[in-house]
């Protein structure tokens, strides 16, 4: 068994990010006064260059390539998801910077941990081995725990960090236990070997492990009944961290679900689809009803996130290429929407004031009609009103689930999203038809204003022209699952 240097080419982006993490750490340790600005610029630069590397090594036609003794897989789906992760992190860092500076908690470690969590997600997205998947997951989660508790002098933030850490450790334990059962039954940790070994393996042990795997994945996605941490953690962490928490990790968790359930265990599909069905129904019902009762916008968006993740999992219920690509489209669309929504929360907050209540959006149209319009885009898109990106995302997963023959789930999902429309539209009503409760001008950095405008317009434009992104997702899933069949 030799180590081949050509392996390194496949993981150029990962290696680049890892080196830059060490650079950022060293540079900021010595640059005292300019450390924050430097860390921010270096982090953005890292993400941009990593995006270029991933983009230029992206090959739409090629089959999946494996490296590091089949532990690493390079395919179109991985590249697209990685690009979306870089994008989400870049946007989240832009939105969050002013927020942190206003609260005097902008420390260079924030950017360092953000880069580390990005690397963890990249590793998860390209993993083809249970061990690598787990290490990537831990790298992502550990950095997120620290980020949630980043406002270390605030009780709320540290409490949220503690809660997330304890429950996250439990979920990791469940996942590991499941992985050990799968390993025990199939004798391999490599996903493609597991896939081939499944038909001949002891099905009881496999199922036993599968239950734990589904539980672990569900926890990381934050879907009911493993959702308990979501509202408290979203509310307790600084909004700059909620931005990170709600966007990119969902993409990575989708990749994990896709690689584990779709890539390695397609032969057990009927079993995990039954489990996911329960999860989907619980999430969309609970998420939408609980969101109705919320006065705090961060909690409301957390519950709406639970229902969105339920919708996304609906795509996996059909278990064919179209289902996976619609779920991927949903995850990407959701990341864009949630970034814009929390971006608006950041925009309305200022030093000494957190725009946390839905009432804080009252009369936004009078204060600034452009951002009220953008928030209207975001809310309409999340509610699934036609010709925004959220509509096409919902439409494609519904199509997939109907094709899979679960008409009742589709009907239930539509009913629940009608109920969900109420709390999204309530925000719109507050913005347009109520008197402003707070007349302070919006003061935010130019960067934030420009990025938020681009983000809001992107939601509207992608809704008008979803074709390209949809084609990408479809092409990606074709490559990934074709390779999985061929071995």
């Amino acid at each position: 068994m030799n180590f081949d240097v050509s392996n390194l080419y496949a993981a150029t982006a990962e290696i680049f990010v890892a080196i830059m993490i060490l650079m950022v750490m060293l540079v900021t340790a010595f640059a005292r006064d300019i450390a924050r600005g430097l860390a921010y610029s270096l982090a953005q630069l890292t993400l941009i260059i990593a995006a270029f590397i991933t983009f230029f090594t992206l090959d739409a036609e090629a089959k999946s390539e494996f490296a590091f003794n089949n532990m690493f897989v390079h395919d179109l789906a991985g590249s697209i998801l990685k690009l979306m992760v870089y994008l989400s992190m870049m946007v989240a860092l832009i939105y969050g910077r002013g927020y942190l500076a206003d609260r005097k908690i902008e420390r260079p470690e924030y950017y360092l941990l953000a880069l580390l969590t990005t690397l963890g997600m990249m590793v998860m997205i390209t993993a083809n081995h249970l061990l690598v998947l787990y290490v990537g997951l831990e790298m992502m989660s550990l950095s997120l725990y620290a980020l949630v508790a980043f406002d270390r002098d605030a009780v709320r933030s540290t409490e949220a960090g503690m809660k997330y850490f304890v429950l996250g450790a439990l979920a990791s334990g469940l996942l590991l236990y499941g992985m050990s059962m799968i390993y025990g039954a199939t004798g391999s940790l490599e996903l493609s070997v597991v896939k081939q070994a499944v038909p001949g393996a002891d099905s009881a042990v496999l199922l036993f492990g599968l239950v734990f795997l589904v539980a672990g994945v569900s926890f990381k996605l934050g879907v009911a009944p493993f959702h308990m941490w979501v509202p408290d953690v979203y509310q307790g962490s600084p909004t700059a961290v909620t931005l990170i928490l709600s966007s990119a990790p969902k993409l990575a968790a989708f990749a994990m679900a896709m690689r584990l359930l779709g890539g390695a265990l397609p032969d057990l599909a009927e079993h995990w689809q039954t489990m996911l069905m329960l999860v989907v129904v619980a999430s969309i019902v609970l998420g939408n009803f609980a969101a109705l009762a919320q006065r705090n916008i961060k909690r409301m968006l957390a519950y709406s996130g639970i229902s969105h993740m339920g919708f996304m999992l609906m795509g996996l219920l059909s278990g064919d290429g179209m289902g996976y690509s619609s779920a991927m489209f949903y995850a990407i669309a959701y990341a864009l929407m949630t970034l814009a929504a929390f971006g608006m929360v950041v925009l309305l907050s200022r030093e000494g004031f957190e725009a946390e209540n839905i009432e804080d959006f009252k009369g936004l149209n009078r204060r600034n009609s452009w951002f009220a319009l953008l928030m209207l885009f975001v809310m309409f898109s999340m509610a699934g009103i036609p010709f925004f990106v959220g509509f096409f995302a919902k439409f494609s997963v519904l199509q997939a689930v109907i094709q899979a023959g679960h008409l009742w789930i589709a009907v239930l999902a539509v009913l629940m999203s009608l109920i969900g429309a109420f709390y999204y539209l309530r925000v719109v009503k507050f913005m347009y038809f109520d008197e402003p409760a707070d007349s302070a001008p919006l003061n935010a950095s130019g960067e934030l204003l420009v990025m938020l405008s681009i983000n809001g317009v992107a939601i509207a434009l992608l809704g008008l022209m979803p074709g390209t992104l949809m084609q990408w997702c479809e092409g990606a899933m074709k490559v990934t699952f074709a390779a999985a069949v061929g071995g």
Partner: protein
Amino acid sequence: MEFSTFVFYFFAAVLVVAGLRVITARNPVHAALFLVLAFFSAGGIWLLLSAEFLAITLVMVYVGAVMVLFLFVVMMLDIDFARLREGFWKYLPLGAVIGALLAIEMGLVLMKGFGGKEVAAAAATITNVTEPIECSNNICELGRVLYTEYAYPFELAALVLLVAMVAAVSLTLRRRSGKYAEKYISPEAQIAARSEDRMILVKMASEKEEPEEPAAGAQPGKAGQ
């Protein structure tokens, strides 16, 4: 029953009991000691699998370093045991029901599994056997796979440790400034201090002590720097 099978079951039984006691022991010190026992039995099982290097590392690193450190922390902290137990009875019924359900479900599934069939037999035909390794010793074999086959996760694990370091520093490091500055005492300034700078003797006429403010007597004349 072969002798090694007997030894395995012995260690496994001790391991399970010790693991249970870790979470049921009321005293954290006892829990930590049971964890030590669990590590020892796990080490024993690894020895049976002739992974002697791993077994010794487990005992040396976890028992020798981590657990001792942990015991120190537990003993130094003033833990309120009564508060730890608070709410135990309140949550017991629900917890017991869920735990029992889980145990029954796991039992039902496992009754069917792990029986007769040779576990991993399916995979044996598929996993390509790597070229025979000439190493006869454990450390050499570990080193071989760690730096070749498992180079990627190995490096990633190093980065996970880096995350732990960065996270710990970012959550706890405080520069000595602002409201924490007073905790820091410069030794030079202390040595250079003279009694004349710190204490002023004031001459005053003697007074009759008033009973109305007894606490005022404890106040020193005038102190400060």
